[in-house]
């Protein structure tokens, strides 16, 4: 039964742990702060801006590691299951964060905390045990070296309960591999990108285990019930949902095939022998479990098992990006894909960062920039799945060439020299994600403008696929906004709106697949703005308007931008790899021969900056823009540093 609760969806306290001094502080949550920054990414980006100035390096003890469950996580809101981890990124040396599902975030709130801020570094490996009010820093010697699954199991055993949630790093995080991530509840969820696991490793923090027995809840139950019914009605008719439920994220294969935008062999081939990786193959031959993240009716999580052959006995979860990055390495054996996912999950590695870094190394090997002397006899060729597994292990443990690749593709390229940098497919130092943008200019720009390096989840440029020309005119000022291939006008506005829009999900802890993807613009807005806002208001007894919710998204995005600007980034960092401009997509297929038109890219970027209220020439935010968003103190700080647009 859902109980009404005056305090709403917030737990009411912030927990701060200094691992250097051992000091543990609990502060009351300022509700004005809460309603302004909402939660999740908003909470994390505000604290990071306040507490991590440019002179602090990503692996310095004074970097912060901030866990912020979404504002609605812990309530009965459907698919509200996301937590944000924020830190200065070891990959980009700018703003960094990762977002994960799992139970841990709701248990942190049940324990009484809306945010966990970790600072300093322990002298020896430790883990944090949060048991409601009781918070302890404990020895983690027995956990060091364990995989994420082993760590989770050990903590469950130690604390005698399946009712706890955990965060952990694997061996890669311990070794401060810049491509390391943090896992939630074994391998249930992953804070994947921006090297956030290396930050945790730099603090000698192996894990966080949490038990919470309190609750968060809902102030206006009738309004909540109505919003819930309306949400279920929308997803019942949205054609976007059935393929998600049927195939999980593997479904994206069909889209890539039809448009010929695989980016195989280090982002060179649009077409690829994908048939062995057909979603039907994963579903019929390997899938053992379809499940859901907490409170989610879509159910797109998948678990796979390999029964025979050299990877027999492997059981793991797998998402689309693992398949995509294996293709980037030229691998199309489904069992190799599942095993690669298993290795990354156990070592605690970001499949996207690692996959692209290995693809970079494979191209260097192909071009003779890396030889078998450096690889210690490993034939690091595209399509060699044995080499993929072995180099992944070497990266996780920083062995041999793996030590260099553990730094990520850009740093490795700079160390190799000899022109290797042009093969590092990255934005702001962070490896590419999603699909090849050649032929679809707004996607190319969206990878460039992401505040955490190349990222399709930071925006939702796919809005161009589901708006009609009339909707393009009404919302983005031009019918061209609805033209995927040739459109130009309105695209910058569409991108800025999309970034603000999907940020709402990261504030509230809502899954992007359950709220921020749809088959029509009407369904999309209904779920992502209207219902998201209604859920927030029902839970908290507030009267936020949809415009105010969108502005909260814009505010968080601007804080991240401001953080990067303070670090020295301007327009020159909002750029994609040269390959996309200069090398035509090859290998046949519908997009064969496509490039990103540089002139169009720049025009869309100009419109985007203008739409955001940032200086078009420098890409820096204007003072009035930040003030309008209630960020006058950040505007003053940037002004002192001569970093305003």
């Amino acid at each position, binding site marked *: 039964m859902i109980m009404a609760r005056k305090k709403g969806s917030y737990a009411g306290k912030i927990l701060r742990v200094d691992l250097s001094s051992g000091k543990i502080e609990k502060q009351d949550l300022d509700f004005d702060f809460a309603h302004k920054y909402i939660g999740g990414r908003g909470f994390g980006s505000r604290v990071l801006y306040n507490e991590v100035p440019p002179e602090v390096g990503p692996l310095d003890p004074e970097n912060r590691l901030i866990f912020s469950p979404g504002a609605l996580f812990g309530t009965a809101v459907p698919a509200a299951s996301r937590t944000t981890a924020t830190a200065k990124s070891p990959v980009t040396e700018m703003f960094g964060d990762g977002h994960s599902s799992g139970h841990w975030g709701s248990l942190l709130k049940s324990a009484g905390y809306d945010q966990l801020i970790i600072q300093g570094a322990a002298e020896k490996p430790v883990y944090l045990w949060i048991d409601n009010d009781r918070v302890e820093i404990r020895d983690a010697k027995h956990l060091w070296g364990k995989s994420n699954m082993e760590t989770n199991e050990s903590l469950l055993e130690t604390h005698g309960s399946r009712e706890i949630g955990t965060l952990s790093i694997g061996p890669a995080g311990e070794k401060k591999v810049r491509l390391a991530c943090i896992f939630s509840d074994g391998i249930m969820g992953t804070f994947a990108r921006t090297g956030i696991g290396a930050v945790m490793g730099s603090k000698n923090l192996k894990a966080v285990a949490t038990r919470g027995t309190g609750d968060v809840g809902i102030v206006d139950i009738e309004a909540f019930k109505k919003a819930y019914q309306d949400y279920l009605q929308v997803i019942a*008719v949205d*054609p*976007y949902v*059935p*393929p998600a439920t*049927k*195939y999980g*994220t593997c*479904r*994206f294969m*069909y*889209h*890539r095939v*039809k*448009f010929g935008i695989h980016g195989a062999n280090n982002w060179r081939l649009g077409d690829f022998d994908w048939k062995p990786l057909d979603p039907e193959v994963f579903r019929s031959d390997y899938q053992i479990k379809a499940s859901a993240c907490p409170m989610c009716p879509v159910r797109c999580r998948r678990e796979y098992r390999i029964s025979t052959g050299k990877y027999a006995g492997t059981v793991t979860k797998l998402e*689309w*990006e693992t398949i*995509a990055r294996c293709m980037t390495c030229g691998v199309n054996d489904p069992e190799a894909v599942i095993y690669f996912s298993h290795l990354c999950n156990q070592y605690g590695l970001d499949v996207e960062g690692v996959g692209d870094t290995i693809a970079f190394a494979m191209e260097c090997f192909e071009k003779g920039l890396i030889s078998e002397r450096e690889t210690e006899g490993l034939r690091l060729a595209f399509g060699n799945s044995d080499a993929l597994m072995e180099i992944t292990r070497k990266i996780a443990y920083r062995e041999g060439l793996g030590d260099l690749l553990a730094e990520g593709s850009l740093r490795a390229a700079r160390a190799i020299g000899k022109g290797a940098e042009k093969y590092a497919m990255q934005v702001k130092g962070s490896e590419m*994600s*999603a*699909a090849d943008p050649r032929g679809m200019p707004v*996607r190319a720009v969206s990878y460039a403008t992401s505040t955490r390096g190349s990222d*399709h*989840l930071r925006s939702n440029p*796919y809005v161009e*696929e*589901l*708006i*009609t*020309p009339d909707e393009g005119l009404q919302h983005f000022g031009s019918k061209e906004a*609805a*033209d*995927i291939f040739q459109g130009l006008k309105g695209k910058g506005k569409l991108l800025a709106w999309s970034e603000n829009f999907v940020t709402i999900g990261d504030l509230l802890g809502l899954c992007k*697949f359950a709220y921020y*993807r*749809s*088959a*029509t*613009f*009407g*369904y999309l807005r209904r779920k992502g703005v209207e219902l998201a806002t209604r859920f927030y208001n029902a839970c908290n007894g507030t009267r936020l308007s949809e415009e105010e919710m969108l502005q909260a998204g814009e505010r968080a995005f601007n804080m991240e931008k401001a953080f990067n600007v303070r670090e020295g980034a301007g327009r020159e960092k909002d750029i994609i790899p040269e390959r996309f401009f200069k090398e035509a997509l090859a290998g046949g297929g*519908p997009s064969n021969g496509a490039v990103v038109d540089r002139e169009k890219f720049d025009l869309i970027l100009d419109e985007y900056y203008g739409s955001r209220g940032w200086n078009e020439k420098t890409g820096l935010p204007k003072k009035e823009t930040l003030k309008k968003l209630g960020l006058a103190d950040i505007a003053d700080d940037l002004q002192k540093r001569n970093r305003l647009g």
Partner: protein
Amino acid sequence: MIVRLKLFSPLSDAAGASELTLALNEPATLKTVVDTLIARFGEGMKRHLYDLEGRIIPSWAVFLNHEVIPLNKPDALDTEIVAGDELSFILNIAGG
């Protein structure tokens, strides 16, 4: 005339097949194909092709042989279909 169709989820689920042939009267357009699919497979098919307001779902992309026709393109449904054409219906949402 006969045209061949390749359907992706959820249309393939509504049709109970991922590949099928349709017999159409000439002249035919993409609208004819959509109408024929709905006539043959009923409400289960219609609700994936039209939204609650009765508008065509704009994020379906139809590949006519090798040319893509996004249904958010004006006049997309007026596209002429001829005998022997192959049409693939795929939900054009990259997501990821």
